[in-house]
């Protein structure tokens, strides 16, 4: 037999050119993929960087030191405003005339007298003594200290007049202004005064809403998924249900808000702005997500496990509860938590059912008026004060922290319960 007269078609010039083109295509695809990931990462960094750089200042708050003489007469009259003001005038001896002093009054937060009152109420033995207290400065002083109000613009265009700036300089020179960690942000409800506003009311509102959502949507969602996946006959009706569940998952959330408004508020007469209603609406919204995720997780359990259980005489329900459900649990949990995280970040349906109200009190129950973190962000973003701008970013950071926490929990649970077969 003659050797190597005919070259294999796979050794031809044409074939190696084809091979080069294949590899080139793969390289282009890889580069496109890396570019996409790079752009996405860059966007994320820009987004987070912008929020953090705008928001971190909100975690600090300027305070002014006062030497308050708690004389008996004023305390009995509960005229703490006068006490605070006297102490402030003492700090700025240069201010003697009425107009200057009126200006000085704006240096302190309008909440300062209440802080003092709370202190005296907690410890009545302070009456008659002179105490050194640090009270919150007004938000404009705070912003000035953080450099957001510039002294080089003309006085007429400035939020702080020259008198106030002179007084602040005097206080700074004496060491009577300090910057401390803004605990108010975490312990107070909403307020019209930025320095008195906190996120706690919204956090509690969100938590109550999520509890209702979870208690309703998790058991109903998983039960529906188990029934549809494991027990329901495959016919036209279950197909119809499946199509509708998939459609519901794609319905804009504001529609669920409208539904909640019409049904829960309008028909059942439940209270407006209540976490109960918010939770009900969110549960409706989250249900399809949980059902779909749970069905996918149940589908992923190999049929051999079901056969094994049925083969030793387990009833269909035992097969599901003893074997299929535990194996599907990681997937179900992940889907559930991601659904919950979506509900936590949802604003639109809450607007429809009145959870967008200005609420100062921290809600104590499911029917109290409440708001939620994303709605709080929306309301603060709408406020004109400069100090609310940084608080908006701070609230976004807090919301993001919760979301990361929940997603981290999802990953952790998945890893913990994941079993191989």
């Amino acid at each position, binding site marked *: 037999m003659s050797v190597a007269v005919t070259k294999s078609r796979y050794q031809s010039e044409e074939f190696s050119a084809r091979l080069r083109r294949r590899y080139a295509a793969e390289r282009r695809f890889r580069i496109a993929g890396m570019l996409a990931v790079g752009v996405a990462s860059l966007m994320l960094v820009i987004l987070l960087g912008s929020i953090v750089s705008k928001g971190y200042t909100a975690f600090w708050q300027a305070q002014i030191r006062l030497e308050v003489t708690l004389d008996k007469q004023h305390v009995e009259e509960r005229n703490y405003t006068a006490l605070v003001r006297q102490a402030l005038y003492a700090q700025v001896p240069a201010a003697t005339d009425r107009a200057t002093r009126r200006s000085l009054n704006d240096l302190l937060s309008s909440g300062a007298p209440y802080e003092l009152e709370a202190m005296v109420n907690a410890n009545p033995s302070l009456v008659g003594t002179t105490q050194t207290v640090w009270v919150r400065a007004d938000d404009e002083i705070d912003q000035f200290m953080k450099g957001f109000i510039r002294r080089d613009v003309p006085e007429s265009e400035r939020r702080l007049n020259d008198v106030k700036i002179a007084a602040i300089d005097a206080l700074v020179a004496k060491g009577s202004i300090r910057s401390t960690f803004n605990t108010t942000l975490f312990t107070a409800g909403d307020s019209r005064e930025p320095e008195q506003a906190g996120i706690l009311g919204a956090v509690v509102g969100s938590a109550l809403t999520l509890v209702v959502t979870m208690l309703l949507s998790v058991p109903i969602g998983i039960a529906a998924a188990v029934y549809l996946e494991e027990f329901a*006959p*495959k016919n036209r009706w279950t197909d119809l249900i499946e199509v509708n569940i998939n459609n519901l998952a794609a319905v804009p959330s504001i529609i669920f808000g409208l539904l909640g408004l019409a049904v829960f508020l309008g028909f059942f007469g439940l209270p407006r702005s209540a976490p109960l209603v918010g939770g009900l609406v969110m549960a409706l919204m989250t249900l399809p997500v949980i059902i779909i995720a749970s069905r996918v997780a149940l589908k992923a359990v*190999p049929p*051999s*496990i*079901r*056969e*094994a*259980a*049925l*083969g*030793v*005489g*387990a*009833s269909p329900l*035992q097969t599901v509860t*003893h*074997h299929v459900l535990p*194996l599907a649990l990681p997937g179900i949990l992940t889907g559930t938590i991601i659904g919950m995280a979506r509900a936590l970040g949802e604003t639109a349906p809450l607007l429809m059912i009145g959870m967008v109200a200005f609420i100062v009190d921290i809600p104590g129950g499911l029917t109290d008026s409440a708001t939620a973190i994303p709605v709080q962000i929306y309301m603060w973003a709408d406020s004109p004060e400069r100090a609310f701008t940084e608080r908006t970013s701070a609230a976004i950071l807090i919301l993001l922290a919760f979301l990361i926490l929940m997603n981290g929990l999802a990953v952790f649970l998945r890893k913990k319960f994941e*079993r*191989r*077969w």
Partner: protein
Amino acid sequence: MSVQTHIPATAMPSRPAAGIHGTKMVARDVKVFYGAKQALKGINLEIQENRVMALIGPSGCGKSTFLRCLNRMNETIENCRVEGLIALDGEDVYGKNIDAVQLRARVGMVFQKPNPFPKSIYDNIAYGPRIHGIASHRDEMDEIVQTSLKRAGLWNEVKDRLREPGTGLSGGQQQRLCIARAIAVSPEVILMDEPCSALDPIATAHIEELIDELRENYTIVIVTHNMQQAARVSQKTAFFHLGDMVECDDTEEIFTNPRDERTQGYITGRYG
């Protein structure tokens, strides 16, 4: 069909002495449909007690379908319809008196691919007895687990690691674990659907020995693609072809002196 007095499942097991091969299961004119497609075209078969019946035939001939009819595992398949009569100890298994769950406890099954639960070796065996309430004490359960593993020839290999996952065993060990799991609920009949097709020759030899030993206590029906295996382990062989049961006889007879042309063609390797 011989009519026997019905023995309640709770009064089991009371089996005739070895050597007497009564009829354990009977199939009369069994037809199976998957939707409009007919998979079995009227099967008549008798399965004798304490013997191994091998079902052979080319792929798609319906032997697995028939096997799954015997413990109603077909019911888990959508659109599957069974006609005809299948009786266990003279009682219709599709009748009103027998529940599928109860039937599957009496007619155990071992599948083609080893499918241990993703649980410990101990829990794999204990699961069946636990759900049927067979063992009332821990000691009793330990006893059942030990006996089952011993009968399946797995005890010596796993006795020190009963708490380790059953999925960590080798393929052959997993299959023996599945057999032990089937034995643990003390079934009367064990159905095996190509139990060795995923195993290497050594593991296969192990299982075949095991089947031979199990014959003393159980009635076994095995589906196999391996003709030598059928010849080695079974006493009776039935040849299936295109949904029909062509021929059923003593194994020796089938392999040495088949009556039907198709049987001969298949066992000599002319097709299949």
